[in-house]
Each structure stands twice: as structure tokens, then as C-alpha cells.
């Protein structure tokens, strides 16, 4: 008899417990959201177009760069700046990131190809590090999804830094003050994630907002007659189809020579010219590259992925021919350059 009574109680309670469980779980749903809140501090969150941007008055395919990058930790940025210029990242302690991406000269070194450890030459033109965070992927062929992944490329490349993370951390650990700084920031000794996060934070701070063109988009300024004409041509020739968005490029891929084959007229394609094909293995992707940003085009000669084109005039003329099937007269090239000049903004170094 006693056993029977107990069984009944349990049944009743079981019926009720199911409801209670539902309630408890509903409360707990909120917890994962809270756990997510520290993602920003890790530096892994990407910048978003629209961070701290005044209202846009003119709606064009080009959009202004955010005036301030959100979610940056100043200590992390400054550590990143230090590491970005630190030759201990290279195997022979001679080359830093800044060697090929010198910040004072618009984030690119002005050579057709750059030189790494032991003076060894690379295969492709170093793109500017400025505004790189706004590209849809990194490298000319887009093989790195983001800045953190990008760092692994040059670090291991034998003609660039020719190093490995173990050696980097061993070298940096010798530096007591810097190690203390790292530990204070992250609460743990040197590790790859921390180094990457710092460098990424610094790279994200490298933007060039408030260009004349951005100010024009925000209704704060007007363009000169030449710039205005240049932009009209930029649109009418069709440059705008690929070079658009916040970075005036960098958000899609296109084939070099979409109308006229680029690898004729005596040019010989090498392995490095295969572009995105090296990433996807799809024959359709041969000679396909990430469309580069034109934000700092006027200051980052030479041009094209192999740095083979010395002047902006030539680059524009060739683009017209191979990408658009158009002949762009000299006067128009001049106006287009005037427009490109209006895209250059200012870099403001963050400080404490």
C-alpha cells in the first residue's frame, strides 16, 4: 500500500516538473548572449562600415569611411603598433611588417615587389595596409578571410619574414618590459592569439577618413570642377561597377582582362598571375584578383598585382582597355586622377 502511494506522488510531480523545466531553460537562454559580450575585447570583431559616421547626404555607390573605428582598445592598438614595427617577427631579426607596409608612405613601399629576409624578392606588389580591414578578404587572391589569418602568410613565407610562431614568441619573451606589457593587457604570457589580436587592432586603426570626397558625400564640402568631372567619368566609363563601396573596391573579385585578354601583347603569365585559381582551383578563376581599393591609389604606385605599371596614367589607360574595352583619352585620364585625389583622407594616429 505504501509503495502505491509513493508512486502516485511521483507521477504528479513529474507532470509539474516538465513545466518548471521550461521556465528554467527560458531564463538560461540569456546566458550565452552574455558570454558573447567579451568578443570585442579580443580584437576579433571586424570593423563595420557605419561605425561612428555622420549622416550621408549624397547617396552614391561609394560610401564614406567611418570617422572613428569602434571597439578599439588603445592599449591593444599601441602594442600592435610596436609589434608591427618589430623586426623580431622575422627569422633573421631584420624585417618587420612595416618594411613592406611603411605607414608614413601610405602603407606600401613603392616598389614593384618587396624584399624580405636576406633581401629576397617577393612575387607580387605589396598592397597598402591602410583601410585593409574593409576588404572582403586579404591578399591579392583573397586567400585569407581576415586580417588575423593574413598575418600567418608573410610570417611563414620564406621570402618575407621566413619565421614560425615558436621562434617569434621565444624572441619576444627575451624582452622583459614588453612581456610585462603583454601580460598586463591579456593576463597571460605571450601567445599567438594575443599577438595577432594586437596587430589586427593596430591595422584596424589605420584608416584614412574625412577625404574631400567623403566630406562631399556627407554634404560638408563640394568637389572641384575637375574632381566632379572625374567622378562623372568614373561612373560613365564604368570603373564604378567594380570600384565601389566604402573602400572604392576591395569587396569583390574580377578577372584582369575581363574584356581583352591581358596576357597577350607580349606579356607572359606566371604562376603568381593565376590569382584566385590558386585558392579555388576553378579554371574560371584564372587571372582573377581582388579588386583593389582606390582610396590611396594616387600615393601607392606602382600598380597592378605585379607592380608592373609605374604610373597612374598608364594604369587607368590599361584598365580602360583591358577591363572596359574603352579608349580613355588623356584629358579624361587627368580628370579621373583628380577624382582619385579626392579619395585620399587623413590618418590620425591613436594615442593615450
Amino acid at each position, binding site marked *: 500500500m505504501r509503495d502505491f502511494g509513493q508512486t502516485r506522488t511521483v507521477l504528479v510531480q513529474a507532470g509539474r516538473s516538465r513545466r518548471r523545466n521550461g521556465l528554467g531553460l527560458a531564463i*538560461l537562454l540569456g546566458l*550565452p548572449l552574455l558570454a558573447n559580450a567579451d568578443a570585442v575585447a579580443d580584437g576579433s570583431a571586424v570593423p563595420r562600415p557605419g561605425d561612428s559616421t555622420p549622416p550621408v547626404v549624397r547617396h552614391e555607390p561609394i560610401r564614406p569611411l567611418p570617422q572613428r573605428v569602434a571597439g578599439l582598445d588603445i592599449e591593444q592598438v599601441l602594442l600592435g603598433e610596436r609589434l608591427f614595427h618589430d623586426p623580431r617577427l622575422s627569422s633573421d631579426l631584420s624585417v618587420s611588417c612595416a618594411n613592406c607596409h611603411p605607414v608614413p608612405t601610405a602603407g606600401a613601399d613603392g616598389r614593384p615587389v618587396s624584399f624580405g629576409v636576406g633581401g629576397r624578392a617577393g612575387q607580387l606588389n605589396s598592397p597598402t595596409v591602410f583601410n585593409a580591414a574593409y576588404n*572582403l578578404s586579404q591578399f591579392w587572391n583573397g586567400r585569407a578571410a581576415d586580417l588575423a589569418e593574413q598575418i600567418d602568410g608573410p610570417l611563414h613565407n620564406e621570402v618575407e619574414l621566413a619565421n614560425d610562431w615558436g621562434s617569434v614568441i621565444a624572441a619576444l619573451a627575451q624582452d622583459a618590459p614588453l612581456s610585462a606589457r603583454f601580460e598586463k593587457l591579456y593576463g597571460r604570457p605571450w601567445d599567438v592569439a594575443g599577438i595577432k589580436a594586437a596587430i589586427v587592432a593596430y591595422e584596424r586603426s589605420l584608416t584614412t577618413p574625412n577625404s574631400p570626397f567623403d566630406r562631399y558625400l556627407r554634404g560638408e564640402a563640394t568637389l572641384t570642377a575637375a574632381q566632379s568631372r572625374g567622378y562623372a567619368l568614373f561612373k560613365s566609363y564604368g570603373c564604378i561597377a567594380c570600384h*565601389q563601396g566604402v573602400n572604392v573596391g576591395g569587396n569583390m573579385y574580377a578577372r584582369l582582362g575581363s574584356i581583352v585578354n591581358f596576357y597577350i601583347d607580349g606579356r607572359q603569365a606566371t604562376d603568381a598571375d593565376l590569382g584566385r585559381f590558386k585558392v579555388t582551383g576553378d579554371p574560371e578563376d584564372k587571372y582573377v584578383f581582388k579588386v583593389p581599393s582606390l582610396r590611396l591609389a594616387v600615393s601607392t604606385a606602382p600598380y597592378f598585382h605585379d607592380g608592373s605599371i609605374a604610373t597612374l596614367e598608364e594604369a587607368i589607360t590599361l584598365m580602360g582597355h583591358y577591363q572596359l*574595352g574603352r579608349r580613355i583619352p588623356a584629358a579624361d585620364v587627368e580628370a579621373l586622377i583628380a577624382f582619385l585625389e579626392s579619395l585620399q583622407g587623413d590618418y590620425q594616429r591613436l594615442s593615450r
Partner: protein
Amino acid sequence: MTSERMTYAVFALAAVAGLLLIAALLNISSLGGASHQTAVSLLGQMRRQQAEVTREVMRVASFRVVQYDDLVELNRELSNLEGRLATLEWFDEPYFIGLVKAYRDSNERRQRLQERVKTLAAMLRNAHYYLPGALQAVERRQDAARLMVLGDYLVRLQRFSLLPGLGERRTIKLGIGAFRADLNLDRPGDQAVAALLDQMDAVIRWSSQLEQAMTDYLAVPIDRALGQLETADQVRFSRESEHLRRFSLVLVVVEVGLFIGLGVAMRRLRIARQRGARAAKRLRDAIESLSEAFALFDGDGRLRMWNRHFKHDFEALGARLTKGLTFAELATFLVQQARFADGEEDPEAALQRVLTHFQQAEQPHVQAMSDGRYLLLTTSTTTDGGRALVGVDISEQKQVEAELRKLSQVVEQSPVSVMLTGRDGVIEYVNPMFERLTGVAAQDATGLTPRMLESEEGEGGVYQALCDSIGSEQTRQGEFQHRRDDGSVCWESVLVSPLRDESGRISHYVALKQDISQRKKDEERLRLAATVFEKSREGLLVTSADNRIKLVNSAFCAITGYRADEVIGKMPSLLSSGRHSAEFYQQMWDTLAGEDHWEGEIWNRRKSGEVYAEWLSVTAIRDDDGHLEEYVAVFSDITQRLAAEEHIRFQANYDALTRLPNRSLLIDRLGTAMAEANRRKKCFAVLFADLDRFKPVNDSLGHQAGDELLRQVAARLSALVRGNDTVARLSGDEFVLILNGLADRDGAAGMAERINRALAQPFDLNGHQVFIGSSVGISVFPGDGDDTATLLRNADMAMYRAKEAGRGTYRFFTEEMDAYITERLELDSDMRLGIEDGQFLLHFQPIVDPRDRRMLGAEALVRWAHPQRGLLGPECFIGLAEETGTIVPLGAWVLRAVCEQGAAWQRAGLLDFSLAVNVSSRQIRGGLSPEDIGAMLRETGFPAARLTLEITESLLLEETPDVIEWLSKVSAQGVRLALDDFGTGYSSLGYLRRFPIDALKIDRVFVSGEEQGQDLPLAEAILAMAHSLRLDVLAEGVEDERQLRFLRERGCHAVQGYLFSPPIPADELVRFHADAGGGAAIPVANSS
């Protein structure tokens, strides 16, 4: 005191227990529940995000997106979500690793296709933007007609790019190809056209690629991949929740205990509260003397006390005004009051608003009462957690406010846009109409200057006018072009006047604006219409209601060749070509009168007199009352297009070689003829004509000669028929005629005879005279078939019968023909049985020396002792055997039988003659090898030198290395080769040198034909030439002494024919041999 302490103790206990409970729940959730919820939520987010990405990609593919940042951003969010997959508890479990990989693979494919879509869409958008301009650039250097075609393809191309369809793609490609073929790169301007065509080609290619990429993109099973993850997670969770349920039982017991404790504590607390409230009573008197309404609520939100002003102000509460009236009830009452006053807000929302208001405290609340009064209510929190409510009557103040609001509502609801700026031009106020007109929200506009509305298109001067008016004393008026927030441009008429304060100083400017975009748009449209009219590449003309030309455009002049001043005031009929009947024009005017519109193809005449086709569209324009005002005609020169269409139509329906209708048009015409015959109760005939000796011509004189022959045949056939009959080329050397309106079968027979006669005449092919002939089969509708296929098949069958009956004849299809086919099939199978059964036997026709009639040899001829039909000659079955291939075993039997017979005679010692056997080309192709022949000779012991193989000319005509090799090998064994039926084919003697031929056999036609007088000289020529080639000549079919003499005199080596003997059995041959100069009796071989 003790009870309160106890209460706190219970509270503390409850709190601790609560924490324990939460900790326990957390513990349980870590078993899977929370992870499951996280997974469900994450997968759901990923699904939504994927859908977002898909949507954006589709927008990209339909060219609606001008920048790709949004898409990049969506992908970034997606990859963030994907990153969180790794935090899920099951992420490392083997089963899920596979599923996650499947998802990632799908996603990677989507990413790749997405990038392709972006690239292609960018290029296509560009091309579509560029092509019309490029066309205009080309325009100046090209003639209008060509351009129109090009323009037409451009429009098709754009349509194709948006809605790709297979047929369209082909048409455009053909069009571009045709255009390109026409280009002359040396001509100025044509290079630009070539570049344009290149771009158009690229657009076609890209469009197809884009469509393919989109198809592939949408086909990626990303939803399935996510769905599998969700299902797997659900299954896993179901397993985990078993654990959970057990845990919760324990928890519930704890929980129940806790809640009982809590209830006891609460009750004690309430008793303590009531005790404290009693003390508050003392306050009442003081409150009663207040000049404002006052009410006090306790911590539980119940009314404890109120004064007379409160009672007065809240008179409407009536009996409800008692102690214990809750705060919520009062709020409900207030909401009801407010509803009486305003009658608007949703009661639920209003109640919430009032409650929130009071809970936040210290916020004055304006309360409208149903009697029209307004109370300003303020609440404040008392020390014991209660609430004091103070109300002041502000009805008078509210009335003044309402007046003001009415005035401002006039402005607010004004249909005119109103903008108020300060003296400095900074916007202080804009009304809703302003917001609607400019698209700028009021809060965005205030604080800015009107400069922000300046459009790019606006001229500096216009804006300057407004600036001038600011600061001036006068009212200014002007028209301005403004830019809306969405970027569109609008026109406004603006009246700006100064606003003065009491002292007469200008304090503000008021700008009243009206949207005149519509008027401006109309003006613009008029201007545009004029431009379109003038620039259109289609000819345009406008006539008055009495059909006098009022207006023409430049394309009209370009197409017709008339200047505008030459045609204004004239009737459009001056263009008429005279090609159309009066009824045609009447119909056109009737349609116009009835439907106000007519369009169609019409032939007109240029000033130069040249007639051209145009596509004309005429529209009658009526005024608002429906009175006819004018006609507008639009036309384009379609001569070229018609020619192109005609060309395509021709290719589809006509045989390129003979320009006769081809099979498809023939079928079509047959269908028409059948319908016509059914309707009119008439009959028609289908004549199937096949050339008798076409292949040899083609083979010997080459394909070009063959083609020429077919052209001449086509010409002769066409000359025979009447206009409504059809001559079509079916294939190769087969022609079909349809004879309409046939009186009787004799008509068809007469035509068949005429055909055979016409084609029996020699043809001249580059100096070669060629004789062919024809056989005709006839089927008649109705009777010989109810559909086109049957009619054709039956005519074909009849033609075969004609061919069998001897060439150069015709046959009607008969019911028996079907039976005939069946019969032949039976005969063929009988034949195969007969070979096995030994039903075949050999007869021999002697071959003799024309000088002394001594027997030189004999030709072996097969006979068939058919069990039912009796003894059959080769003419009854060899043709069928050739057709069905039975000739191969039959021929092999004959050869072996001949060899055996010959060997028997050899053994008997009387074989001083040779034996000839016919070998058909079918046998050789069927596998009769020289080695087989050698083996047969060895096995039977028949000497090769006594064997002659008679081959036909058709074998030599194949002239392949195989044939030459076959002949050489046979010849090398010592077997003689004779060419049978010489003279009927096209073998010229000259080429016989290439073959190891020993003898020629002149066909009986040349020896015993009807018109001997003509053919014998041919035999003479053959003999002369054969001598020069050192070939023996044998003549067959020799029937009388005259022929024999003729042949003998011309040195013919051997003769054969009824003059000497018909084919005879072997034993009779032996006798013949003895009579003709042979010796003893010869034994006869057993040939079975």
C-alpha cells in the same frame, strides 16, 4: 519584532534556497538543455542569415545593387555565426564533424558562386550602361537601316540579359554574326561597330554564365545541410533530456518546500504592515486642510486616505471611492476619463502608460477628465513605500494651450509646405507637408540651413535667389530645384516672406512652398517628346484629321527620301507603292476608324522610286471629347529584316542545292493538299521519282557533277508541273511531286511517263554526256493513305516495284504491294531453307567460238527447284537475295557446286573448257575472300585456270584499295576475271587498266536490243577498244546469225546466246560439248 526577524530569516532562507535552485538548474542545463537551446538558436540565426545573403545575391544578379559592401557585411556576420559553431558542445563529436563539414563545403561553394555572380553582374551592369552610348557613337558613321537592326539587337540583348531564354540567345547570336559578316574593317566606323559587336557577344556570354552561376548558386543544398545539423541536434537533445527529467524530480521536491516557507513569511509581513498603517490615520486632519487634491496609497497600492478636494475632483469615482481602492483601479478610472475626453488611445496601452507614469514618480501627469477639466497629477513615494497623489486643476491653462494648438494644426495640416527659419537662415520648424515634399524628417531638418536641400543639378543662381531674400525686407518668389533625401529631385515654387515680432523687427522668415514637380515633369516630358520625335530612328509622321501631313521627323526624310517641305500638306498616299489593293487600304481605314489603331507591314515607295517594306503603326489621336484630332504614324524600314527572315525561312524549307522544297516543306504541302482535297472532294497524286543510275555518276564523275546532275533533274521536273503543283527533293536522288486537282489516275500516269521521258534524255555534265533514267511510284489521295507518312511510304513502295519491273517505268501503289512485301520475306526464308535442303541446282549456258562454234566454256546459272512453285530462274530470286544478303550463302554454294562439277569433268578428262560463275559485290563485302576461293579450288581439285569469275562494273566503281587487293589476289591464283554487263554502267575502258581484268562481257542490250541498228555500233566501239587493251571480249544474248556475223567480223572472242543453246542441265551440256566438237560422254557431278 520577533515576527519581523522571523520574516527576514525566512527571506534569507528562501534566497539561499533560490540560489541553490538556480545552481542546480544550471547544473542540469549543462547536461545538454542549454547547449541544445544555443544550438537551436544559432542554427536558426545561420538559416536566417543564409536567407539574407541569398536575397542580396539575387538582388545583385538582377542588377539592383550598386555597391557590394552590404553583401560583404552579411557574409561577415554569417562567418561570425559559423565561428560560434565551435563553441557548441557537440562540435567535436564524430557524427557532427561530418555534418559540419558538409555544411561548410556547401557554404564554400555558395561563396565561390556568389563571387562569380558579383563579378558578372558588375560587368553586365557596365555593359548595359555602356552599349546604348556606344551605339550612339557609332551612329554618326553608319546608315540608318543598319543601325536600326543593331539597335533592335541591343534591345533584345538587354531583355535577354534580364530574362534569358534559349531562343533569344540564338537569334541575337545569329544577328550579331550576320552583322559581323557584313563588316568591312577598312571602312571608317566599322571598327567601332566591330568593337560594339564584341561587347554584345561578351554580354551574351556573361548573361548565360550569370544565369548558370545563379542556377548553381540556388541549387546548393545549404538548407538541407543546416536542416541535417538541426535534426541531429534534436535527436541528441532528446537522448539527453532523459537525464534531465530525473534530476528535475528531485528539484521539484525542494522547490515545493521553499514556496510553502515563503508563503508563511509573506503573511506575517502583511500583519506588520497593517499595524503601521493605523498610525498614519493621524495625518488625515492635516491633509484635509490642503488646497490641492490629495490621496495616499500604502505600499500595497491601496488607497489609505484622501481629502475633500480629491473627493471633489474625483467625484465621478462615486461609490468606488473607498479605502482599499487600488492604484491600478484609480489608473483604470483615469484612463476611462481620458477616453471620454480624447476618445483615441488604445485603453490597454493607455493604462500601461498611466501606470508606468505613476510608478516612475515625481513625473507630473496631465489628466483629462470627462467633464472637460484637466488635472495635473503628481505622485511621490512615501517612506513606507506608499504613494502620495497631489492633483491641481489646470483646466484654464489647458484651454489656452488648445487654442494655440488649433492654430498650429492649421499650419501642420496645410497642403502647402511651410518652413520657418530664423534670421540666420537656420531652420526652426517645418510642417509635415514639407517632410513629405522633401523626404527630410522634421528632426533632421531643424538646425540645418535650406542649403542641404540643394540639388546637384540646381544652378548656383537659383539658390542665390533664396539667400538674397534672407535678410531682405521683401517677399520673394521663385522656383527652385530641390533634392529629396532619397536623392530624387523635385521642383518647388517658393514664397519667402519675413515675419515680424511685436516691435516690428524681422524675427523669422516663412517659406511657403508648393511642389511643382508635376508641372516641371510635364514640361520636361514635352521637351523630351519633341526630342524623341526628332531623334527617333523610326520614321514619324503626323497628319491632320483630313489626312494632310502636318509634321514629319528626320528619320522619315531619311527613309522616304523626301524633304519635310515636300510633303507637308500632302496626303501620305504619295508614298504608296501601288503594291496593295484598294481593299487593303480600305481595311486599314476601317480598322483605324473602329479601333483607333492599325499596324502592319506595308510596301511604300521612296522618292527615288525604290519600293521598300515598312512596319507601319498608325494611331488616331482624339481630344477629350472624342473628336478626331490627328493621326500619328510610326514606321520603320524592314526591307532588310524581311530579306533576312526570307533567307532563314528559305533555309528551313528549301533544299540548298536544287532550291526545291525540302522534306519538311513537302510534308507541310502534303498536309495542305490533303486538307484541300478533303474540302473540295478532289483527289491528288504523290509521285515518287528515283533516279536509276545516279550513284555511278556521282562515283565516277565526282560529287560536283552529281550535284550538277541533280540541279538539272530539278529543272526538268519543275518545267513539267503546273504552278500549284509541288516538286520537292526528298533526299539524295529521290524527288517527290504533288499533283493537285487530278481528274483521274490517268493524269498521274501521264505525268509519270513525262517524267521518265524527260529524265531519259541525256544530261550534259561539263562535256560528259550522261544517261540516267528514273522509276516512278504513285500513290493517290484519297485511297492510298490517310496521312502524309503513309502516302509517301506507299508511293515509295510503288517506286520500288517500278524499279524491279525494269527501269524507266512507273507503278501505282496497289493493295497487293503490301502483300508483295510479305511474300518476298517468305521467299527469302524459303531460299535459306532451300540452300540447306539442296533445292538449288546448276544450269550451264555454253560459250562458243564465233568462228567455228566450238564450245569454249559455259556460264553457270543457278536454278531453284521450289517445292511449291516449281523450277525458278535467277530473275525470280537473285534480286531479292542481293537485297537481303542471302546471296552470300547462295553464292558460296554456287561457287562450290561449280568447282565440284568442274572437278568431276576434269577427272573424266574432258575439261578442255572453262566455267564462269557470277560473283556479286555483295558477296565480296559479305566475306567471300580470295583465300576461301583458293581453298575451295584445292578441296575440289578444280584447276584455277578453268575458272572465270564474272564481276559487275559496280564493284569496280567502288575502286577502294580493298577491291583492288581482292581482285589481284584472286587473279594471282590464276583465276580469270571477266567484267559482266559491260556498257550499262559508267566504266570507261581507260580505267580498266587499273584492274587485273582478263575479259569483258558485252551486255545483251548492245547485242540484242530493240534498236539494233543503234546499239551494235556501240558494241563495235567496245570491241575496238578492248582489243587495244588486249582484253578478251565475250558477247552475250546472241540470238541470230546477223548478230553472230557482225561480232565475228569485228573479232569478238566468244559468244553466248539462244542461237547456240539456252542454259541447260549439266548432262545436256556434256552432250552439247560432244556435238560441238567435244569427245566422249562426261560424268555429271553430284551437285547436292
